[in-house]
């Protein structure tokens, strides 16, 4: 359990915006252990998807650029690899599923051939064998009558079934790491529950690690072992799931948890995090969350906080981490 599968160190990704190089991910460091599910949460525009794309080296260059950092996958630096080598990693060792099952499948090919394509690309086998494996995987991910469905085109399937096909493609080469970028956001709650359970079961069966990107704190609480909270391109807090929910230390995490309506308790008024997520080209000085924070003072406005270790791998990017209770939170 303790061994690291992926180590991201000091990652910085920039995008050119109107001719200006704007950092959208800064000083991001985290690791994913073997067999663990790491949740990456944050609001839109916080840099979650860019981080995951950087791991897959899918940042379009230009306008994007991985400006700094290391991404070690089983000890090898992915950022130093040649494109040819990277192609062998992509889809084989690291697989990805996206939010939109509608747009991430090719409408001109049958589902079966899209799964078989991935198998043929990374394994030495005949087309016949690849097709048979594709049907087998469809069965594994719970698609009813897989032989028939393998010959269906994506438009003939429902959203939930398409997402199952996406998972089938991702799992076809037994990846070590599955990156799931908002895998259930486009699905209904009862189907969402089915898909999340499927990802969890597959993870157990295939011994893989999962990087689960979501904005839903409920999904995080039920599916992740550890959580990294992102805001404006930085990780503000990272800890195991029980610490994040039971003993959060960053004002943003605390606010986020108070701002969501709960199913099991009714509050009169939801907590407001005032203002909105800043744009990347107009980030505030000092702490990026400062202008929206109830505890912001002069130090926060002037000096950008570093990640502080609170023990047990609980890292917090706040000057007053651990001292917030004294300040009335």
């Amino acid at each position, binding site marked *: 359990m303790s061994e690291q599968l992926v180590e991201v160190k000091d990652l910085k990704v920039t995008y050119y915006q109107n001719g200006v190089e704007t950092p959208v991910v800064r000083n991001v460091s985290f690791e994913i252990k073997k067999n663990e599910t790491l949740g990456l949460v944050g609001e839109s525009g916080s840099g979650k998807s860019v981080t995951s794309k950087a791991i897959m080296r899918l940042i379009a260059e230009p306008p994007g650029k991985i400006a700094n950092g290391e991404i070690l996958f089983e000890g090898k630096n992915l950022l130093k690899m040649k494109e040819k080598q990277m192609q062998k990693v992509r889809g084989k060792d690291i697989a990805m599923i996206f939010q939109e099952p509608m747009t991430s499948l090719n409408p001109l090919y049958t589902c079966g051939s899209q799964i078989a394509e991935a198998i043929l690309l990374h394994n030495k086998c005949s087309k016949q064998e690849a097709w048979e494996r594709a049907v087998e995987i469809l069965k594994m991910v719970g698609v009813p009558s897989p032989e028939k469905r393998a010959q269906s085109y994506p438009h003939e399937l429902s959203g939930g079934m398409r997402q199952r096909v996406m998972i089938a493609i991702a799992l076809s080469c037994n990846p070590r790491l599955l990156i799931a970028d908002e895998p259930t956001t486009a699905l*209904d709650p009862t189907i969402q529950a089915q898909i999340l*359970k499927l990802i969890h079961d597959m993870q157990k069966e295939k011994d893989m690690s999962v990087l689960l990107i979501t904005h839903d704190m409920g999904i995080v609480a039920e599916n992740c072992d550890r959580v990294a909270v992102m805001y404006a391109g930085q990780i503000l807090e990272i800890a195991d799931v029980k610490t994040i929910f039971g003993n959060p230390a960053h004002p943003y995490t605390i606010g986020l948890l108070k701002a969501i*309506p*709960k199913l*099991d308790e009714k509050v009169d008024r939801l907590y407001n995090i005032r203002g909105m997520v800043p744009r990347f080209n107009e980030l505030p000085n000092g702490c990026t969350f400062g202008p929206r924070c109830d505890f912001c003072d002069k130090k926060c406005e002037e000096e950008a906080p570093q990640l502080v270790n609170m023990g047990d791998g609980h890292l917090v990017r706040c000057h007053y981490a651990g001292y917030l209770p004294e300040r009335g939170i």
Partner: protein
Amino acid sequence: MEKLLEVRHLKKYFPVKKGFIKRTVGSVKATDDVTFDIYKGETFGLVGESGCGKTTVGKLILQLHKADSGEILFEGTDLTKLSKSELQKYRKDIQIIFQDPYGSLNAKMKVGTILAEGIKKHKLLPPDQIQPRVLELLKLVGLHDSDVNKYPHEFSGGQRQRIVVARALSFNPKLIVCDEPVSALDVSVQAQVLNLLEDLQKELGISYLFIAHGMAVVRHISHRVGVMYLGKMVEIAETDELFEHCGHPYTQALLSSVPVANPFHKKNQIMLEGEVPNPINPPTGCRFHPRCRFACDKCKQEEPQLRKIAQGHVVACHYPEKVYGN
């Protein structure tokens, strides 16, 4: 409490056409015999999965679709029977807020023009009072006076949704249909918009029909909740009653499928098999029976009607006691 809106046996089938001569081969039963009331100053939540007909109900109330049969009584007047010109009078009383604040504002109009348009059209105020009213509306939804000359693209999603709310308020409506008003917004911004809607209700006494698929949001904002499945209303109850003692197996499964933001709490999840069936050809009897854990022969043949199981709590199920109270 006084009833503002009474919906009675509302039906809307959309024809499905096929082939070169566009022959009607079937129909999507989007809303099939839906009955409910909305009281004055109340928020009525409408939940269900995509394709269950909740948006169609909202659009029928606004008369954006013509109902096939049934009645929509707004303060006693049946809106479905009115002619186009008679309807004009009621249009301003019922307003809508859509899900996507990026698609529902005209990009070429300034905020001030957007907010003044409805007031001018319905001649609600003399011309010299329009500008002060626009500024008042902006203040009401928490925007600045200076925003009046800006274009929609200059605002963030949450701010745009505030403009949409202000536009709906410009008519002094009695009912606002909120169709997934916060689904496209981030968590922190979502809380701002929900609080705004609640404040406005307290201040102005507006009723909301709150359509959403996020159960937690509906629980937070609604006084009463209706659950729809495949065009049918399957359960209506007061919010706390529904979330704590639901009486329909579908409601129970829907509630248990919502992820809870609490890792210390272990819940027993009821996993629903299969997917929502095709509304063109819904199952016989109870429409939920192919996915229901308790389904028996009676459910396959006989369609359950809404019946009362407690004060203000109706359920369309043959065996509500299997879920209710357990």
